[in-house]
């Protein structure tokens, strides 16, 4: 593979007290690819995301984004460089209407410099983006407070907020968890469209079937260690992965 690496993690470690949540993991994301991250519960997937965006500080190791070290920067700077993420547990602004939720990322320095926009313009941008992720324009969904929206819309909102930052790399933390099959089927094309635009994606997912449809490469974590890295099919056939998911025979 001769593509440029957009993100590179080298021997990253994270300890929470005595627990080592991430052990010496190295991986890279190539430009324009979708990297799947899978693993059983508690295997350190979300910690990995938090480490990339520096919501949690690294214990050791380094992370490079577009060839530059980013692990000393505060989270808002990293996001300003072009990494955006969604949260597994959705974090909307509950009191604001859905489209007003979008104003805050659209007001960030990155979005302002790339999209411009004055007060008032951003409302229109917000509604466009929300339509892209499936808020029907003719309905009133986009004007309802986020607090009353169902989970499916909140996940879409979370995705739209990440998209509004015009990222080069998106990290989707269990976007599909808690959604029905139909909802997953309607969000999948949106993710594919992002890939077509050339955005690289790291996708953490428990829904393996859907993930394997779109993932170029998959890494598997277990107890904070990387136990496999490669194409979807070969990864699932490896012995270590089977043991991690199904347990070893005593």
């Amino acid at each position, binding site marked *: 593979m001769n593509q440029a690496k957009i993100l590179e993690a080298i021997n990253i470690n994270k300890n929470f007290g005595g627990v080592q949540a991430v052990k010496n993991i190295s991986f890279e994301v190539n430009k324009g690819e979708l990297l799947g991250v899978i693993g059983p519960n508690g295997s350190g997937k979300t910690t990995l995301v938090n480490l990339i965006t520096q*919501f949690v500080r690294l214990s050791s190791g380094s992370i490079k984004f577009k060839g530059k070290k980013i692990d000393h920067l*505060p989270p*808002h700077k990293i996001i300003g460089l072009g990494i955006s993420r969604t949260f597994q547990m959705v974090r909307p602004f509950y009191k604001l209407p859905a489209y007003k939720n979008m104003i805050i990322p659209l007001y960030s320095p990155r*979005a302002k410099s790339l999209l411009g926009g004055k007060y008032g313009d951003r409302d229109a941008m917000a509604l466009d983006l929300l339509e892209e992720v499936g808020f029907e324009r003719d309905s009133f969904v986009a004007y309802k407070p986020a607090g009353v929206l169902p989970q499916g819309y909140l996940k879409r909102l979370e995705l739209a907020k990440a998209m509004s930052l015009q990222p080069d790399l998106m990290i989707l933390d269990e976007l599909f968890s808690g959604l029905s099959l139909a909802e997953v089927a309607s969000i999948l094309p949106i993710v594919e469209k992002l890939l077509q635009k050339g955005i690289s994606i790291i996708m953490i997912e428990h829904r393996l079937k859907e993930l394997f449809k779109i993932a170029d490469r998959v890494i598997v974590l277990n107890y904070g260690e990387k136990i496999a890295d490669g194409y979807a099919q070969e990864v699932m056939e490896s012995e270590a992965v089977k043991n991690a998911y199904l347990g070893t025979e005593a």
Partner: protein
Amino acid sequence: MKKRKERIDRGIKARSGDIFALSSYREMMYLSAPRFVPIIGFLILPLLLGVYWQKVLLSVAVFALLAISWDILAQTGMVSLGQALFFGVGAYITGALNHYWGVPPFISIPLATIFGGIICTLMLLPVLRLRGIYFSMVTLIIPLMLVRVIEATKIFGGTEGLTGMTPLPSRWVEVYLVIGIMLVCLFGFRRMMDSDYGLVLRGICDNDRSVINAGINIYWYKTQALFIASSIGAFAGALMTHVYMFVGMPVFALDYSIFPIAAVVVGGPGTLAGATLGACLLVPLSEALRGFGGLRIVFYGIFLVVFTVAIPEGIFPYVQRKYNEFERWVEVDK
């Protein structure tokens, strides 16, 4: 024939964001009346009131400013228990400038507003990362500490305070200056909180990690909100110094911290107008109850409890909601 009550939102022909399509004087009145009533009311009241109640009105405006300042901080997710800090710092700056260097009030008040804002912001900068009750505790304790510092080191006149400030030219200037600034703050900052910038501030209160995740430096925005709020408080303190012609340790009193919170709770948080309305009710009430002597605080307390239980959302949001909807009886067809 059965009837039921139907509740409808008052119709405005078209509404999108901030742009209202107005088709009649009635609709224009509907929108502008709630804004003109307080403006005209505040401008006319001093002409109708005697000297004593004019002072009360002055006090209303000062507490309204403190309540607005508290509400801006609260909307940004910083619950402060130390509005007295802002008030006191502003008061002492203008006091010192006027007492030691004879700076006239029209220069010392603006200076106290800006530098009071800067000093308070710097003092609270280290605790900006604290959230919720931890931030509140620190803001509560700082003014209490400053009182002891002044007492122990005898700076700025120690326990005696500084006296003999230059008064403002007349009582009319006093009352109209503070009312003017209060109205500007009320409408200006209400507008600010509704803009995209204000949305970011409110977002920090709602979910700060989400704002970080939007690539925004929340500490920078919190600093700005803190500066705005402390400048408002410092202005109130500076003005009162020139009204009383005295500055001393009472400017750090707990009243200045707790009273604005009571005003916001009664009036309705998150609207700024509620904060002003709360101050308009509580300050005159407190004056009117003076006749009861020791029982005053009891009646005052009962009033607070009744209001917070009866209208927990606050008076202003309640009135606003009722203003925008009306009820009518309609026949139930059967």
